[in-house]
């Protein structure tokens, strides 16, 4: 049986009565409860950027994790830091797995995750009494095993080479592929293109906007969202790979041309000299 006992947004109790519940669970069920963390801990300046009951979230998280059987990091905030950890990360926000190292952590990223995925992970643990198999990023393989792109219903347009070019063109109305509008489907592992959202009504691509990759690590810093490639992280300058590449190729071309020109000029001078010399020789031959 699942019992959701402590959730600040929903619970009836408030104030220290609310905190009491948390403490009681920890006392009475050590090693039995699953701690599901939403949000993340700002670690900057000793954690003052988020406090509950006068204590830092960081503190409470560490304390609650102690007796947990496993920790579910629900959502991108908990599993990779999400928007508040985007550069320059002013509050020093850190995902759960960077704070707690002693317990198994299941990352369920997404901003937010699909509701069915969240319940799926939890009920899997309860029904089969084991933790789900995780991928390289600590995500359950059963829901994050494949890219959006590989299951996207617009994939046939991708393979055909038919792409939306502007938000109001014919392709956009016919539902062509959003690759050129910056769709992150090819880089994103999630179940959106199969489960869809809100009981299967639609999903971002289905409603005409590209995927922004919200279940991928540090997706906020992979922008701009409407270009396919992220910028090259050069300090100070902002450039796309193509821009840098073109500059480099042009520089090489100019260098080569300059060298060729000076070589040609040099050859010309040499030739003239040689001609003069030959002429002189011939003349001296004659003189002899």
């Amino acid at each position, binding site marked *: 049986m699942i019992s959701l006992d402590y959730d600040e947004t929903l619970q*009836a109790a408030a104030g220290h009565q609310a905190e009491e519940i948390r403490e009681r669970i920890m006392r009475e069920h050590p090693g039995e409860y*699953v701690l599901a963390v939403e949000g993340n*801990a700002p670690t900057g300046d000793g954690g003052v*950027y988020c406090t509950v009951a*006068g204590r830092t979230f960081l*503190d409470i998280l560490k304390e609650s994790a102690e007796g947990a059987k496993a920790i579910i990091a629900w959502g991108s905030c908990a599993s990779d830091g999400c928007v508040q950890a985007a550069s320059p990360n002013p509050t020093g926000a850190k995902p759960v797995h960077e704070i707690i190292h002693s317990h198994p952590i299941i990352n369920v990223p997404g901003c937010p995750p699909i509701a069915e995925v969240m319940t799926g992970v939890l009920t899997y643990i309860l029904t089969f009494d084991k933790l789900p198999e995780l991928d390289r990023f600590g995500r359950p393989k059963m829901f994050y095993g494949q890219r959006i792109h590989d299951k996207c219903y617009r994939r046939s347009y991708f393979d055909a080479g038919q792409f939306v070019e502007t938000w*109001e063109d014919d392709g956009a109305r016919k539902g062509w592929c959003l690759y050129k509008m910056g769709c992150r489907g090819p880089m994103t592992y999630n179940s959106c293109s199969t489960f869809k959202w809100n009981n299967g*009504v639609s999903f971002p691509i289905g409603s005409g906007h590209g995927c922004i990759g919200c279940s991928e690590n540090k997706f906020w810093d992979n*922008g701009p969202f*409407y270009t396919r490639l992220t910028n090259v992280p050069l300090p100070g300058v902002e450039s796309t790979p193509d821009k840098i590449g073109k500059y480099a190729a042009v520089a090489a071309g100019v260098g080569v041309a300059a060298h060729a020109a000076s070589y040609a000029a040099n050859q010309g001078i040499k030739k003239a000299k040689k001609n003069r010399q030959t002429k002189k020789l011939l003349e001296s031959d004659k003189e002899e």
Partner: protein
Amino acid sequence: MAKQRVVVDPVTRIEGHLRVEAMLNESGVIGDAISSGTMWRGIELILKGRDPRDAWAFCERICGVCTTVHALASVRCVENALGIRIPENANIIRNIMFLTQMVQDHVIHFYHLHALDWVDLVSALGADPSKTAALAQSVSPSWPKSSPGYFADIQKTLKKFVESGQLGLFQNAYWGHPAYKLPAEANLMAVAHYLEALNWQKEIIKIHTIFGGKNPHPNYLVGGMASTIDLQSDNAINMERLNMIRDLIKQAAVIVEQMYIPDLLAVASFYPEWTQIGGGLGNYMVYGDLPAKDISDASSFRFPPGVILNKNLSEVLAVDPTNPEEIREEVTHSWYEYPDQVASLHPWDGVTVPKYTGPKPPYSQLDETGTYSWLKSPRWKGHAVEVGPLARMLVGYAHGRDDFREVVNEALGRLNVPATALFSTLGRTAARGLETRLGIKWLQDEFDHLIGNLKGGDTLVADTSRWEPSTWPGEARGFGFTEAPRGSLGHWIHIKNEKIESYQIVVPSTWNASPKDARGQKGAYEAALVGTPMADPERPVEILRTIHSFDPCLACASHVLGPDGRKLAEVIVR
């Protein structure tokens, strides 16, 4: 009774982190109070240097509850800066999404975040199901689910729940508190509808999914919407999608008119004294929203803009958020620092430099004379003002708009109270319901309007002429606003060389939950708490009633103020 300090932290059933400290006087009445946002995330710093077209996605994540409003304000401020006029259909779609959000949010607020302040869940166990059925039929004759069997089942579920000792989310609340006045039957009815509303709320937001791909956090687009309309395509907004929207609106109308409003009036009639408590500032401000065609035409707004001071309904003052003289933010009691000791700044010049000077955690008490919040103190021409449904209803009413007058007068008549009853905790809660009635009506109107446009052959949803950054001016400033469920929301942007130079957000809950300003004027929460009698300081349900009547959203307020380890949920595995 000695002076006493009551601390509520966390204030639950809100989004984000809020702490309230109330100082009781000798007679057990709140003499002074402070509200503190206890979290800060620094979204504004994160936005600097990014592509303005991406900003909506960042802003949208400020809050997980009223998810769309920040995205809306954000695309509007970028469009304003770049001089983009969105197509009429895009405006309608945004209005529909706005209203969907508002209706859903208000119903959730009433049943899931607020009702438990008025409804004693445990006493519902003693209710008689057939009497409950009779009550339900009398308050809402056409609502179908009102048989004695239905209520008996609900009661059984509840009983099992309580007996197993597993109250779950309902543990440890203030059950049995003398401030609960509803008869057991009304409590049982409310519990039943708590569950109904929980089921319904995930239906209505499918409208967001249709246009924005998902909820929470549907997609917006600078220049319009990405959801193309093509009645001849199965890959765009077409007849199937439109039918679904029409049905969802119809369903919502039933929920609101036959369940929410009757329940609201029924509960209100048991708590007449709360029309005298919690009035607070008496100053109200509305930026306005729901343009007919174009956001720059304020005269076409369904929510008219304006300011009311000192409860004076005979005069509505004009408000201009882009005027640097009108809206200024102070940080006297906040954990921020302004350059050169300036007292206040307009958001276009705003800076967000955190400087924590509060007590070192863990702490048990904040200092009301020092700094105590992650919220700034915004002021309109120096006045502290309240924003939100009550402000909107009052401004619309004071403007003399028929649709507003009709719903307000009808409700006042039903409860048999004068218009001054609106200036109260209960007035705030009622205004939310009345606004929802308008919202449902307008949803229908907007939908019909969309169909009308489609009949005329106009299917355009996005203006892409200014999509490419190369078409932008070198430098531009913009202001975007909306009336979020919790009140007026403003985004101010400064774009330079195709990038965000600065971004400032002033959210509704910052207006309402703001700490005191330099002149000692309290924020709306603080002012509303003063004068509230407390029956049992150990179980401060009265504080929750007033605070919840504002529907606090500290996630938003603390974007600025800083909420975001949003919550910590624990689940027991047995």
